[in-house]
């Protein structure tokens, strides 16, 4: 049996000290296979973002292990984690997090710059990624000239341009209206289906979680429930 794409083993994240200690994550174990589309739900403060940050190698746990592609990445230093993000991970944020005063195309090129891809190939691949999210015509627009939904699609293009195995999305539709949110979800679902991307997505909305195959619910830093999405599996 091949190793799962990612695996958390008895993972804890503690903020503060002594009296003020907060268990943002408390003995979390979780395993996600390649090609899954997982929705992470739970009330505010339940540790969803903390988990996503650790999964995204942006943060390190206080204790426990994180295995990515079967390799323990818990003890890696900042630069090693940067390299992991560069080559294996894609991020989508609630606030889009595009570089202002920079065109959509240049935003999408950004991760390729750090991969050292030559400029001409960079442009080609960035344009390709923009096409995949349906923004062929907007390559030269700056974020301020794009709608929220379009900005988030640029961010998705940026996340997939390096062809990462894993996409981490923390409330990607949090700033969008329902119609725009559905478009984004459909895009993610399609990328998951057609490109085999593994997607982990935090959301507060059941409607959006419904696009996922599996729904993990956090409560007080622990995994409260972990279920297959019946609706999808029934279909």
């Amino acid at each position, binding site marked *: 049996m091949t190793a799962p794409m990612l695996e958390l083993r008895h993972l804890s994240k503690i903020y503060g000290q002594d009296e003020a200690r907060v268990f943002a994550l408390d003995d979390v174990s979780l395993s996600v296979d390649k090609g899954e589309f997982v929705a992470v739900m739970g009330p505010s403060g339940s540790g969803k973002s903390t988990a996503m940050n650790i999964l995204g190698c*942006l943060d390190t746990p206080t204790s426990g292990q994180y295995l990515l592609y079967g390799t323990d990445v818990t003890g890696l230093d900042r630069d090693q984690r940067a390299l992991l993000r560069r080559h294996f991970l894609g991020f989508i944020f609630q606030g889009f997090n595009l*570089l202002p005063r920079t065109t959509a195309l240049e935003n999408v090129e950004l991760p390729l710059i750090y991969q050292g891809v030559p400029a001409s190939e960079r442009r080609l691949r960035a344009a390709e990624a923009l096409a995949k999210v349906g923004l062929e015509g907007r390559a030269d627009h700056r974020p301020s000239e794009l709608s929220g939904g379009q900005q988030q699609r640029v961010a998705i293009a940026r996340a997939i341009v390096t062809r990462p195995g894993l996409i981490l999305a923390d409330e990607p539709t949090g700033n969008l209206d329902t119609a725009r949110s559905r478009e984004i979800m459909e895009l993610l679902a399609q990328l998951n289906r057609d490109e085999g991307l593994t997607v982990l997505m935090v959301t507060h909305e059941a409607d959006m979680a419904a696009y996922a195959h599996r729904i993990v619910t956090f409560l007080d830093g622990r995994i409260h429930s972990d279920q297959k999405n019946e609706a999808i599996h029934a279909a």
Partner: protein
Amino acid sequence: MLLEALRLALNTVFRNKLRSFLTVLGIVIGVASVIAMVTVGQGSTAQVQSDVASLGSNLLMLRPGEAGRGPGGSSADAPPLTLQDLTALTRDIPDIVQAAPVAAKLQSVVAGEMNHSVMVTGTDNAYFDIRGWTLAYGRPFSEGELRTGAPVCILGTTTSADLLGQGNPVGTTIRVGKISCDVIGLLAKREASTFGQDDNDTVVIPLRAMQRRILGKSDMQSISITFREGARAEDVTAQIQSLMRERRHITANMNDDFNVFDMKQISSMLTGITGVLTGLLSAVAAISLLVGGIGIMNIMLVSVTERTREIGIRMAVGATEMQVLMQFLVEAIVLSLIGGAIGILVGLGLGAVGSYALNIGFVPDYRLILASFAFSAVVGVVFGFFPARRAARLDPIEALRHQ
């Protein structure tokens, strides 16, 4: 990657032109003042050296009075030099080739409507050899003219042109002070100015004429002496000193009441002064460079804060600490190099204007320009490092959350 950092830095710098310009202003002022001051300083040093060279080599000047600091020492109470001293010098010291008396005074000279104020020198024919003058027209003074102090004069080209227009002035008569003088010669034009004064603006008359008709006393201010090629200035000076002590009856426990000045000393003296000035001004300039560097650091710190989220994004997509550090460091270096380049241009401009105003040669020194450029880069590295490191050390999660 470095190329990307450079492209990015240029974009950032040019996106905010006014702010970038204000940021580098300190560097501009620092570099410009260094370049301008050193350029003018070197120009004047070169000028002094060429002036001294134009005075002629192996030239000594004997004057009454104790040794002062420069060619204008005190001669107040000392007994004047005499023609007998002059004769004794050439007779008794074999190393001395020629000696000429000099008595000079500023006089107004008039020809027709034209009026001109000029230094008039009373001397003899040896003066022309000693000072390296040749005659373009006419003749030197005759024995009789020298002996009787006849009212005749030889003009420099500038004086002649100002009073009488271009051409040969021999045969005309001009007024020098209160006396009427026949012009008997014109000095050949010399492409030199001594310490900012035009050498060619001069009137030379017999010493006697100067003493009797203009000064009204038989004084001379100095004796110009040339010595044999190969003799050492110190040795000749010592011989002159012992001869003059004897002639002026100075006993062993008394100081000289005259002094011998080696014209070459002017060179080292003025070069020294210029050097001190250049050093002082450069210190001021170094301080302004320091201030300029702090200005860059300040703006870079602001920039890091403003761009915290951008830094977070870059880190999220895989920028290493080193890459973020390089990005901001390169930006600081680009800023300071732009400042340095502008400063070099402004400094050369000011240096050219200054050299022109002081009437000295404009000698831009490419080593100085390279050094300024390199120094600007160093300022960028030194003052850019701290902000850049701060950017590189940011926590990506905090940075992404930054508003």
